Structures are given as structure tokens and as C-alpha cells.
């Protein structure tokens, strides 16, 4: 299909250049394909948990965990983020993409890496490592090579982003100040650079080690690996917050109450967040890292980033409230919330993403990242509950919300089954919410381990441990939540793919009428959000202290 060299989006007034638009489309489509693969590979895990290891073997469980993890956490999110970067650099900054050839090269490299990892996970099940390949557990050399290829592809995409940004800056295409969405994408791209460099430092020697040419120290690998592994989550965080600001604008015309504070918050991410990755090393046998070093990194520097998140925690909901109040829904404290466009899946995805990320993901993250509380959280299901709440309920749900705008505005197709679509974020978000709540409690209180292939039966060992009966109830809640979320997730893929295949093509006039984006201007006080934010902080404080009380009930450990 030949694209016009440039068109103006009838809903947003943005200029869409054909090279960028084609790259946005192809990256988004591939992202959704990997999302589908990720959903399919979680089915064996759920069946293992529900029907037991006699029906679905531990080996299949570990294999499925590997494939689910890589497809979801890496491929779905990174392909979508690349689409978001190109959108921010080209559309938001009104600049044609620099080096589109390199961007295509990056795309093919990422795709090759992703396909190779899927291939290896399927054909050599006894060699796979359930998501995190800690040395000296060894995968085939091709695995490390595939990771490197994927990372090089992603580095090319980030480079194209920076080059386009430079062109926009030099040619002053965006006026005096770039829009907040582009600023957030820039934050994500800077974090992605350090993340991918850490990935190269971790995986290139490991590749050589897998060929037998080099020795790799397990602790050294673990440290550099988490510079990559957690760094990637900071990219997801910055991309998610960017998606939140975009969605607030797209759905209700809401803008941040303070451009200055929102930007400072992104800067705080840059300052604090990567060093905070040290929280992965809190319970390591590591003489190299002193208490003082750990304390400074996970105590002070990460809390700088937490402050950034708390600023966004006010600004994003405030943007929603401002948009709705300025539209005239100004009654009382929460009149705007009652009159909000709940039938719009983009809007409900935004609200659920903000709430679930804040209460489940953010709160659990700060708590588990606390120096000594990690004794209770480390490697338990609670960790999984935490990152389901951040990257699934937070980032993935926000990206799903954006997709409901991507389809009509970029692909120019009307969403099929809008009534069903209105339920999708609820089914997915609340299902995942139940799942992660149950996981966090199972992990912190009962210590259930993560990545455990035989449904906590300990392989029939004579030393086996019998969990208290309430664990069964929580596991059932986990199963119900997971199943609902899976249905919601498959519904999303169905809606996206169905719309691409059978959605009614939209004309410019129809797009302008149905999706007009207009920033509401004026001054209002986000009173409702102010109250909600204060309650959130109070709850946060109580939760943090309660966790320490719980820790104080344990044996005396590590006393001086």
C-alpha cells in the first residue's frame, strides 16, 4: 500500500510522515503478535497451577514461563515502545524520521532476535532457563546471540529517536518547548540507552562463556544483568507515564496542572532510578558491595525516583480531573468522575492503569526495595505480584489504552464491537489486580516461591512442607484472577486484530468527528484528586509500617 509522503491527522492536527507512520504500524502490529504468543504460553502455567503437575509437567511449566516472560516482558513491551518513540519523535515533534533505513534495520534485528528466542524455547526445552539465565546455568550460545541481536536492534531504534530529536531541535519544528509527551519519551530513550549498554556488558561475555572461551563470575553477571533487567523496567515506567499523559489528553483533553513539575519528575527518574536497581542485590552474598553503598543506592537515590513517581501520581489524575472539570463537569468533589467517559476503553484503561500501578505496583515496589524488608519478599511470589502490577496492570494496560487510539488514528479503522471493548480493560485490569494481590500476600506472608514447577508440592520429597489451609483460598483467587485476565487479554488481541482485518475504514471527516483531541484550557483546582492523593499517601505509610511490624515477628537475623 502506497502511503502519501505526509498527511495531517484530522483528530490531533499532527503531521504524520509516511516513513514514521509505516514504522509505527509495523512495530505495533508485531508487538501485538508477541502479546498473543505471551498469552498462549501462559496457558500451560495456569493449567499446571490448576490441574497439577501430573497433567502439565514441571518441565512444561518452566518452558512456558520462559516463553511467556520473554514474549511479554521484552518483545511485546519493547516493540510497542519503539512505536511510541517514533510517534513522539516524528509526529509530536513534526519532523520526518532521520535514518529510516536504520530504523528498518533495527526492526529486522529485533524481530530476528525475538524469533530466535522463541524458536530455541520451543525446540530445546531442556536447555531453557525460566526467564532469568543466571550464570552458571547455561543456555545454548544461540540464545545469548539472539539477546544481543535484539538489543542491537533496539539500540538502533533509540539512535534513530535521538537523531530525529536532534533534527527537530535544530530546525525548531516544535517551537520553544517540546510537548510533555516527547519529553517523557526522551526520558525513556535515555534510560533505554543505559539499559541496553548494561545488557551488552552482561550478555557479550556470557555469550563468549557459553562458547567456552571465557569464565564468567556468577555474582558479576547477576549485578550487570540487573543493570539491564531492572533498567528495562524503568524504561517501561517512563513510557507508561508518557502514555498516561497522552491518554489524559486524548480521552478528556486533560493537561498536567504544572508542566514544570511534571518535567522535573521525569528528570528525577533520570537521576535516581537506575542506581536503584541495586535493590536486586539486597540479599546477595556480596562482599563487594558494602552496606553503605547499598544504603545510598536503595535508600536515597531510589527515593529520589519515588518522589518523581509521587509527583506524577498527583499530576496524571489531576490532568484527568482538570480536563473533565473544564468540560463543565464541575459539581462537588467527584462529579467529574461520575460523568467521565467510562464507555471509552482508552479512558477506563488509563484510570485502571493509574490506580492499580499506584496501589499495587508502586507501593509494593518501594516496600520490597527497602533494605531489610527484602528478607520477606526476596524470590517469593510477592515479587511476581509486584511486577504484574507494574508492567501488566500499569504499562501493558496503558499501552492497550493507547492502542484504542492507534487503531482509528494511525490505522484509520473503526474499532469493532465497541460495547465489548468497553469491558476489556475492566476484565483484564481487575483480573490482574486480583491475581497480583493474591500473589503478594502468598509471597510475603506464606513465602510461596516464584517459578515453582509442581504447584508447591515439593516433588513428593519426604521433607515436604504442608502449607496452612488459607493458602488454598489465595491460590484459588490467583487462578480466578489469572483466568479473567487471560480472557481480557485475548479479547484485546481479538479486538485489535479484528479491527485491522474487518474494521470499517474511516474517512478524515469521521475521524475528526469521533476522535477530536482538544486540550481544555483554563484554571480549575483538582480538589477530588487532592483528597485521593492524600488518602493514597496515608495508606502507603500504613502499609510500609505494617510490613516492618510483620518482619519484626521473625527470628532474629543479621543482628550486630
Amino acid at each position: 500500500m502506497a502511503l502519501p509522503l505526509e498527511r495531517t491527522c484530522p483528530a490531533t492536527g499532527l503531521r504524520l510522515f509516511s516513513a514514521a507512520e509505516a514504522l509505527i504500524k509495523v512495530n505495533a502490529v508485531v508487538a501485538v503478535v508477541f502479546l498473543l504468543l505471551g498469552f498462549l504460553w501462559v496457558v500451560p502455567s495456569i493449567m499446571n497451577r490448576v490441574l497439577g503437575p501430573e497433567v502439565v509437567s514441571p518441565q512444561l511449566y518452566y518452558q512456558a514461563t520462559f516463553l511467556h516472560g520473554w514474549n511479554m516482558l521484552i518483545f511485546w513491551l519493547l516493540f510497542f515502545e519503539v512505536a511510541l518513540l517514533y510517534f513522539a519523535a516524528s509526529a509530536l515533534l513534526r519532523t520526518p524520521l532521520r535514518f529510516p533505513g536504520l530504523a528498518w534495520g533495527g526492526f529486522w534485528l529485533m524481530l530476528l532476535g525475538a524469533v530466535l528466542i522463541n524458536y530455541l524455547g520451543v525446540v530445546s526445552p531442556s536447555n531453557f532457563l525460566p526467564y532469568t539465565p543466571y550464570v552458571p546455568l547455561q543456555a545454548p550460545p544461540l540464545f545469548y546471540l539472539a539477546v544481543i541481536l535484539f538489543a542491537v536492534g533496539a539500540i538502533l531504534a533509540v539512535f534513530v529517536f535521538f537523531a530525529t530529536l536532534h533534527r527537530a531541535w535544530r530546525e525548531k519544528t516544535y517551537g520553544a518547548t517540546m510537548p510533555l509527551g516527547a519529553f517523557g519519551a526522551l526520558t525513556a530513550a535515555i534510560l533505554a540507552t543505559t539499559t541496553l549498554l548494561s545488557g551488552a556488558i552482561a550478555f557479550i561475555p556470557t555469550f563468549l562463556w557459553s562458547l567456552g572461551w571465557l569464565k564468567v563470575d556468577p555474582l558479576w553477571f547477576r549485578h550487570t544483568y540487573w543493570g539491564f533487567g531492572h533498567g528495562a523496567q524503568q524504561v517501561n515506567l517512563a513510557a507508561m507515564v508518557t502514555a498516561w499523559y497522552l491518554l489524559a489528553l486524548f480521552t478528556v483533553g486533560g493537561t498536567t496542572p504544572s508542566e514544570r513539575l511534571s518535567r522535573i519528575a521525569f528528570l528525577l527518574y533520570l537521576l535516581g532510578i537506575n542506581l536503584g536497581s541495586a535493590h536486586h542485590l539486597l540479599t546477595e552474598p556480596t562482599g563487594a558491595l558494602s552496606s553503605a553503598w547499598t544504603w545510598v543506592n536503595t535508600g536515597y537515590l531510589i527515593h529520589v525516583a519515588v518522589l518523581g513517581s509521587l509527583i506524577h501520581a498527583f499530576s496524571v489524575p489531576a490532568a484527568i480531573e482538570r480536563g473533565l472539570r473544564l468540560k463543565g463537569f464541575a459539581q462537588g468533589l467527584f462529579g467529574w468522575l461520575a460523568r467521565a467517559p467510562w464507555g471509552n476503553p482508552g479512558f477506563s484503561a488509563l484510570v485502571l492503569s493509574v490506580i492499580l500501578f499506584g496501589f499495587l505496583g508502586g507501593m509494593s515496589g518501594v516496600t520490597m526495595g527497602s533494605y531489610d524488608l527484602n528478607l520477606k519478599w526476596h524470590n517469593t511470589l510477592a515479587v511476581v505480584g509486584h511486577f504484574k502490577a507494574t508492567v501488566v496492570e500499569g504499562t501493558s494496560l496503558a499501552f492497550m489504552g493507547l492502542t484504542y487510539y492507534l487503531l482509528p488514528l494511525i490505522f484509520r479503522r473503526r474499532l469493532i464491537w465497541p460495547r465489548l471493548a468497553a469491558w476489556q480493560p475492566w476484565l483484564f485490569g481487575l483480573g490482574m489486580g486480583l491475581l497480583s494481590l493474591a500473589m503478594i500476600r502468598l509471597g510475603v506472608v506464606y513465602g510461596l516461591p516464584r517459578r515453582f514447577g509442581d504447584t508447591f508440592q515439593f516433588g513428593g520429597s519426604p521433607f515436604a512442607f504442608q502449607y496452612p489451609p488459607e493458602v488454598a483460598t489465595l491460590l484459588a483467587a490467583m487462578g480466578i484472577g489469572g483466568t479473567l485476565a487471560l480472557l481480557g487479554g485475548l479479547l484485546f488481541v481479538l479486538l485489535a486484530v479484528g479491527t485491522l482485518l474487518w474494521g470499517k475504514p474511516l474517512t478524515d471527516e469521521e475521524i475528526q468527528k469521533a476522535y477530536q483531541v482538544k486540550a481544555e484550557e483554563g484554571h480549575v483546582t483538582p480538589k477530588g484528586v487532592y483528597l485521593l492523593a492524600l488518602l493514597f499517601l496515608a495508606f502507603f505509610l500504613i502499609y510500609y509500617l505494617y510490613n516492618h511490624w510483620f518482619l519484626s515477628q521473625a527470628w532474629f537475623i543479621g543482628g550486630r
Partner: protein
Amino acid sequence: MAIHTPPKNWLEERVAPEERVWLVLATLFAIVFLSAFMGLWHLTGRQTTHGQAYRVDPASFRQEVQAFAERYQVGELNGIPVVAPPPGEVYLMAQAFSWYPVLKLKKGETYRLRVASVDYPHGFSLYPHEWSIQLHPGYEWVYSFTPTKAGEYTLICNDYCGLGHHAMVGKILVEE
């Protein structure tokens, strides 16, 4: 132009009073409270990650553990020696897919645990859930602990170490 760019004077714009209050509270919470509480707990708390770590050769660590087990062995449980050492240094070895030996300890006494993996990454996790820590081959974790409750405790592995990972179970017995 439809999509939002910030107003011209956005750098001079005043932050609304509500958001200023929020900013102060958030700073107090994140920078002052969280950091101070975390540090104070680590210095004065009775459950901390405070300990030492040493590089260790897996083969010689295995020998040390075996010598320790022979010296204090009082019985056997499922083929693994049960060891009742006096307060002081106790050894524990993690290997695919078992914990060695079974420790028999006394409530209220303080021990100095020397624990290491001799092959793969393992996760030390004590049940009913007291605490979890990470182990890597080539490094030993050394820290003191005091059992505060008597009973039969189970050790599981909570970091994937191979296809038998879920069957890696051990015991720690605590007597009154």
C-alpha cells in the same frame, strides 16, 4: 493546532497551593521518612540483611561442611545427617537438589550461619516463612541468627536451579 504544547510562560507559572502541599508531603515521605526509617532499621533492627560474604572454593566448602557434619552428627533423617552443634558456627550447603545437613538448634541461642551453594544459584527460604536470601556458587554468606520459636522448620529453594528445583527441600529443627 490541536495537540497540546505548553503555554509560553510555563517556566514562570506558579504551582497551585494544593500541589505545593503535595510536593512537600511527598518529599517528606520519600526523601526523609523512607530513607531515615530504612537506615535506622538496618542499624538497630533485629531482622536485617547485615552479614558478611566471602569468596569460597566450592570443593573446600563441601569438605568443611562434611567435617562439621561428622563432628556433630546425632542421627539421620531421610538419608541426611542430623547435626546438633553448640551455639557458634553452623554450616549449611546448598546443592542441586538438596540442603545438607539437617540442623538441630536450640531456641534462644545465637548461631553464626555459614551458608553457600556449591553448584548453581539457589534461594535459601525458611518455612514457616521467616526469611529468604540469595546464594551463588563461589560465595558464602555469613550472618548470625537466633531462633525465637521452637518447632520443625523446612528449608526450600526459591531460586530456579534446574529441573529438580521444586524438590530441593531440607530441615532445620529447633528445640526448646
